[in-house]
C-alpha cells in the first residue's frame, strides 16, 4: 500500500534563507506520525507545503498517491488541518464557523448538522455553540479549529502543535480521538515540541533539523540510530541526534539526503 504522504527532495527558501533542504519523508496510513525538531527546523513549512498553503521551490509531494502540484485542489478534501497559531473569523459564532467549514468542504447539509452536534459535544462546546468566536479563550479557539478540521471526517488529520493552549482535559480528549481515528484506518500527522507526548502518542516520528530529515522511525529505531540505549527517552534521542547534526557539515548532510532520495526513487521505479 502506498504511503498517504510522500515528500521527495523538497526544497523551500524564504528570501534566500533555506527552510527545507531536500526533505524526504513518508507517512503511512493508519499511524500517528510526529514531526519534531528545534525552532526554525522547517516543521511548519513542511506542513504548510503539504496542505497547499506554501509552494515548494522544488521536489515532489504526494498525498494519497496524488502529486499536489499536478492536482492542487481535490486532494485537500482528504485533509483536515489546524495551524500552529489559530486565527478564526471572530465575527462568526462557533456553529456558524463549523457550518462554513463544512460548506467549503462540500459536506452535505444533513451531515453538517449531525457532525456539528457530535463535535460540539466531544469538545464540550455545547454551551458556547452560539457564542461569537471573539469571546472565546485561546484554548477554546483551538478546540473550534480542531472541530472544523474534523467536520468532513478526513482521512488525514494534520495538526501543527495541537496541544498548545489546550487544558489537560482537552488534551486527553484529543489523544483519545487520535487513537480512535487510527483504529479506523485514518492517519494523524502532528508537529510538536512536546517530546514526552510524542513519545507516548506517536507510532513513528521524524526528527528534522535545518530543513533535513535526520532520523525517522519508531522509538526503538531512533534509540539504535542514536546509540543512546534502549532506555533512552525520545528527548535524549532527540538531543543526541540534533547535537550530532550540528557537528555534521551541511554539504555532507546534503550528500546523504541525495543518496536517500535516489534510493527512494529507485524503490518506486522498481
Amino acid at each position, binding site marked *: 500500500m502506498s504511503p498517504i504522504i510522500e515528500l521527495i527532495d523538497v526544497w523551500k527558501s*524564504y*528570501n534566500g534563507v533555506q527552510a527545507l533542504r531536500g526533505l524526504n519523508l513518508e507517512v503511512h496510513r493508519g499511524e500517528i506520525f510526529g514531526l519534531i525538531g528545534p525552532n526554525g527546523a522547517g516543521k511548519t513549512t513542511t506542513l*504548510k507545503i503539504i*496542505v*497547499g*498553503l*506554501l*509552494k515548494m521551490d522544488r521536489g515532489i509531494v504526494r498525498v494519497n498517491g496524488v502529486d499536489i502540484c499536478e492536482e492542487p*485542489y*481535490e*486532494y*485537500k*478534501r482528504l*485533509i483536515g*488541518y489546524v*495551524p500552529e497559531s489559530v*486565527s*478564526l*473569523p*471572530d*465575527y*462568526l*459564532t462557533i456553529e*456558524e464557523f463549523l*457550518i*462554513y*467549514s463544512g*460548506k*467549503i*468542504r462540500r459536506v452535505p*447539509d444533513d451531515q*453538517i*448538522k449531525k457532525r456539528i452536534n457530535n463535535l460540539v459535544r466531544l469538545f464540550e462546546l455545547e454551551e458556547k455553540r452560539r457564542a*461569537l468566536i*471573539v*469571546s472565546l479563550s485561546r484554548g477554546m479557539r483551538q478546540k473550534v479549529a480542531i472541530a*472544523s478540521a474534523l467536520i468532513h471526517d478526513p482521512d488525514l488529520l494534520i495538526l501543527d502543535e495541537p496541544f498548545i493552549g489546550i487544558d489537560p482535559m482537552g488534551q486527553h480528549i484529543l489523544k483519545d480521538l487520535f487513537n480512535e481515528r487510527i483504529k479506523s484506518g485514518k492517519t494523524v500527522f502532528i508537529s510538536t515540541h512536546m517530546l514526552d507526548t510524542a513519545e507516548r502518542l506517536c507510532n513513528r516520528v521524524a526528527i528534522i533539523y535545518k530543513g533535513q530529515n535526520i532520523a525517522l522511525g519508531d522509538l526503538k529505531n531512533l534509540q539504535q540510530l542514536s546509540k543512546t540505549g534502549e532506555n533512552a527517552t525520545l528527548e535524549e534521542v532527540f538531543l543526541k541526534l540534533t547535537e550530532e547534526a550540528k557537528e555534521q557539515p551541511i554539504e555532507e548532510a546534503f550528500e546523504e539526503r541525495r543518496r536517500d532520495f535516489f534510493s527512494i526513487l529507485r524503490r518506486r521505479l522498481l
Partner: protein
Amino acid sequence: MRADTVLSIYKFKVKTFFGAFRASKASVVLLLVYIIGFLPGISGFSITIADAIKQGGVDLEVCVETLAALLSVLMVFALILALRGYTVFEHEQIFIFTSPIRPREFLVASILADLTSSLVFAHPIFLLYAIIVFSLNLSAYLALLMLSAILLFIFMLFFLKTSFSIIKALYRDLWINALIYILIILLLLPAAGFFIDLPLKYSLLPYPSKFMAEILIDILCNCSVNLISFLGLVSYFLPLTALFILTSERNFFPATTYVPFVSPFDASIRTQTLKMERGIKIFSRMGSFLTLNLESKSFLRFLMKKEIIRITREGSLFAVILMYLIISFIVAAIGASASQNTQGPPSTFFLIFFLGTYSLIVPLMLVSNWRVSDLENLWVPLASGADMRIIVRAILYDFVLISSIVPSIMILILSIIQNVNPILPLILIISTSIVGCSVNLHIMVKFLGKKSRGTPSFLIGWASMLLSALLLTPIYILVVLSILLRLGDAANMLLSTLISIYSALIMKYFVRKIEKSIVKIEV
C-alpha cells in the same frame, strides 16, 4: 538627562512607527506615488495664494482672523488629546517603562519622534511654504523667521499636549478636566464670530494663535516682522516650556493608559485585529438578526451571506451608512443654498460630484477592513480545497452591493427632495462602486502575498484610489458634458448604458485578475 538614552528611545520609536514601511520594497514606490499625488494640488494652491498676495487684494484682518481660528483649532486638538491622560503603546510599557529610563528622557524622545513622524505627512505644508517663499521673493531672513515661528508654535503644541496629559494622568481629578474644557471654550469662543455677530474677535484677544497668525500674515503680505506679535508668541512658549520641564520630572509611568499601536505604516495584522475585535464586540448585536445557516440555496449565496454578516458585525456597514448620512446632510445643505441663489445645474452638479467622489472612499474602506478581518483566516478556505474564485466573487459582489445600495437610497431621497432626475447620479455611483471595488480588491489581493504583505494599507489604498480615479475619469467627463450640454432623457439613457457597459467590462477584467492572484497566495 542622558543624550544617548534619548537618542536610543528616539530611534526605537521612529523605527517602530515606520517599521512596516521597511518590510516591503513596494512601500518605497507607493510612498513616491503618495508624495507625487499631492504635487499638482499643492502647487496650484500655493501659486493661487502667492498670486492673491501679489495682487494686493487680501483683506488682512479677515486673513488673521481665519488663520487664528485654524491655529486655535490645532491647540484645541492638542487639549482634547490631553483629556485621555498620557497614552502609550503596549511595547513602550513592556520594554521602555521596565528599563531605568527617566520620564523626561522618554518625553523628549517621544516629542522628537512624533515630530519626525509628522514630517512625512507634512510634506505638502513644506511644499506650500517653499513655493510661497520663492513666489513672493522673500528674503532669507524673513523665510527663516517664518520657519522659526512655525517651529516655535509646533513645539508649543507638543508641550501643551504633553504637560496637560501628564497632569491629567497623575491627578485624574475633575478640576483638570474643567480646566481643559475652559481652555477649549476660550480658544473656540471667538470663532463663533464667523457665524453670529459677536464683539469677540481673535484679532482683539492676546491669544498665541492670534500672534502666530499676525506673524505669518505680516511676513507674507507686508514683508515685515511684527515684533510685538513675536514677543507675544514667545511669552506663551516660555511658560509652556517651563510647565513641560516641571511635569516631565514627575514619574507618570504607572499612571499611563495603554492604547493599541497606531501608525499608518503599521501593517501588523495583530494590532489591527485587536482594533477590529473591539468593533465586533460593539457591532455584533447589530448583525445578530442575520445568521449563517444552511438555508442558502447556492454556494455563492451562502458565501455572500457570510460576507454580509462580517461587514455588519465588524461595523463596516454602520460606518458606510454613517458616512453617507453625513455627506447627504452636507449635499442637502449645499443644494438648498444653491437653489436659493441660482436655478438649474448647481444642485445636480453638487449631488453628483460630492457623492461620486465620496463613494471612492467606501470601496477602499470595505476592502481594507476585509484585509484586517480575514487575512489571518485565509488559511481556512485555502487549506480546504474550496474554489477560491467563488469566494472572491462573493466578496466582490458584496462590496459592490453595499457600496451601491446605501448611496443609491440616499440619492433617491435627495433627488425627491431637490427635484432632480436621479438617473445620472445613480449610474455614476454604481459605476464608481463597481470600478472602485474591483480595483481596490485586485490591488489588495496583489499585496496579500508573503513578500509584499508588509506594505502599509494606507499606501496600498492610495494607489488603489489613484487607479480607480483614472479609470473613472472618462465616466465623469461624460457626465459633466451631459450636464453642461443639458442633454435630454434619451441621450442620458444612452450615456447611462455606455457607462454601465464600460464599468461591467472593467469589473470583468479585474475579476479575472483577482481570480488568478488569489490562488497564488501563500499564507
